[in-house]
């Protein structure tokens, strides 16, 4: 499946916006955290997992999805949320803990829920798998043409939940796609130390489904493979597993000094960064000229800046509101 020009531009738009988003979040995160780094301080406390470098995994897949299609992400969800079309101001306000957030600041950056585009999250490794498989089941039972996609990291594949959900999706032939973002590291543990096989696509054989490996963080290859997998799922032919070799350009979380990385690795990753590569490709192949690309970038930045301003200006939430949503109101039975 070759991407059309508007798709290529859309993918670049979301990749660039996502990258800028993470840069702004990083800056806000660092506010108030110096000189002595303390995660509890500043306008954006807590853990923060940035997705810089992994944008191809998000846009190459989400380019094929509509708002009804279901996506579950994990602890590193921003790029996927942006590609899936999660409401940007509400997402940002959530990340900043404001009352205008997706859940009024109750949930934070690892728990972004946006029912308008069927997006969910869990901070527990691999626990987005079950819900995505369940959404796929619902679609199949209702005869709807939608698909469900779960994003996990390469290290999450060794979690029992992953295996159970893969088997369930396969034995029930559900419209489900599992995207494995292989950024080579689970925090400080390299894939070779955590995973008995070099590539997780071989594990697809254990479920009798297609397995695909995409090297080199290649947006177009992701787009093509995801297109096939999603079309297959919509045709009722069951799940696919796609592992994407991608690059984590930041620490595992903000504050990670990455002493575990071999020397030079980080620089090599930046040299292979897909964002400028993809930008150059757009121009080289005549899909866009410099001005169009710049205007896309500008518009994306504006959206991000607006979302952040909106969030900064939003009021704090109050405890009574949070307490009121622990249980959903039971309607009259």
């Amino acid at each position, binding site marked *: 499946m070759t991407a059309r020009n508007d798709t290529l531009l859309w993918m670049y738009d979301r990749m660039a916006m996502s990258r800028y988003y993470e840069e702004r979040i990083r800056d806000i995160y660092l506010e108030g955290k110096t000189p002595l780094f303390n995660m509890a301080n500043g306008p954006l406390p807590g853990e923060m997992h940035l997705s810089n470098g992994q944008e191809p995994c998000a846009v190459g897949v989400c380019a094929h999805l509509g708002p009804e299609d*279901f996506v*579950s992400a994990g602890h590193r969800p921003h790029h996927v949320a942006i590609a899936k079309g999660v409401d940007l101001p509400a997402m940002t306000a959530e990340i900043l803990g404001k009352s205008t*957030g*997706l*859940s*009024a600041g*109750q*949930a934070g950056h690892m*728990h972004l*829920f*946006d*029912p308008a585009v*069927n997006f*969910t*999250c*869990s901070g*527990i490794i691999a*626990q987005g*798998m*079950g*819900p*995505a*498989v*369940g*959404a*796929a*089941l*619902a*679609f199949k*039972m209702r005869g709807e043409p939608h698909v*469900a996609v779960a994003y996990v990291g390469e290290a999450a594949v060794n979690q*029992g*939940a992953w295996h*159970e*959900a893969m*088997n*369930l999706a396969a*034995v029930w032939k559900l419209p489900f796609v599992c995207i494995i973002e292989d950024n080579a590291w689970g925090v400080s543990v390299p894939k070779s130390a955590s995973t008995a096989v070099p590539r997780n696509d071989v594990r697809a054989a254990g479920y009798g489904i297609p397995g695909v490996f995409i090297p080199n963080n290649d947006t177009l290859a992701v787009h093509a493979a995801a297109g096939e997998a999603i079309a297959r799922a919509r045709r009722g032919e069951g799940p696919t597993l796609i592992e994407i070799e991608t690059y984590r350009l930041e620490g595992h979380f903000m504050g990670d000094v990455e002493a575990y990385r071999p020397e030079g690795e980080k620089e090599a990753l930046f040299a292979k960064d897909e964002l400028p590569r993809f930008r150059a490709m757009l121009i080289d192949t005549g899909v866009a000229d410099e001005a169009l690309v710049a205007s896309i970038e500008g518009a994306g930045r504006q959206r991000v800046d607006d979302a952040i301003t909106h969030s900064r200006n939003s009021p704090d939430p109050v405890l009574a509101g*949070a307490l*009121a*949503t*622990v*249980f*959903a*109101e*039971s*309607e009259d*039975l």
Partner: protein
Amino acid sequence: MTATSVLLAPPKVAKQRKISIAKAITEATAQEMRRDPSVFVMGEDIGAFNGVFGMTTGLLDEFGAERIRDTPISETAFIGAAVGAAAVGQKPIVELMFVDFLGVCFDAIYNLAAKQSYFSGGAVTCPMVLTTSVGGGYSDAGQHSQCLYATFAHMPGMKVVSPSNAYDAKGLMVSAIRDPNPVIFMCHKGLQGIGWLGTVKRTIVHVPEDLYTIPIGEAAVVRHGTDVTLVGWASTVHLAIDAADALAQQGVSAEVIDIRSIVPLDIDTILKSVRRTGRLVVIDEDYANCGVAGEIVARVSERAFRDLRSPPARIAYPDMPPPFARVLEQAALPSAGKIVETVMEIMSDEQH
């Protein structure tokens, strides 16, 4: 308003339709499935096998394998799947065969199901029912006889119910299915009325064919009394009734409350009773430490301290895994005899 249990006031109907808890739950499920196409059931051996605890007898024939789904032994996956299905509008009923197995799937329950509403600020609900079997008494040993009520109750975001009779079972099941929140529906094996185990006769009561609901979070008075309040649920309600009978012989008038819902807990009904009787004994088949009985004792002590005439008391499972050997298990379980003894003890304490 405190409700009255069917165990205290059986309905006056010409034709009694007495059925077991298992049948009552199955009936509630079938009727709701007919009404609402989004309701479906998932679990191990719930299809051709009818559910190990008879929760789905006959449903496969009526509703087919799409809506009565046998699953692999993958509790994390299928309970997680229920959460996702619920997020997009289905109403799954999922069965965790024995509560003792929660350890392989608890994250899907307390970090996914129970927090979906909260994490989404109420935008995404989780209308699912998790049915599970609890309790011992038939020598099924340390990994198949636990109650673990408190393990669920400790975690916010889910409702927890456990019926003592078929009438309550049907009404609570209908409420649970219609509730927008995850409801943990805990069936005591010794009350279930299934083919391979006996049951307490008193659980088999008249159950109207028509659909009705029992509000989750409302306790029921099972017996009126003036000297002591006995609080129980599921199996221990029946022990309390037996104890109340025995106590009556000794001139002690015991009030018995069936809380029915563990979360939310109708503490007001308990407090009202204790304010009258001045004495409290809670009976729990779950482990003592950090259990529901302790929670009730604590809440009453905090809120009705000056109304208590004797120290509040509880009878719970000792903090040990359920033993296999019958003699050991029977010695460990709460019993009517232990209740009588405890009541006598706290009443005698007042003399000192």
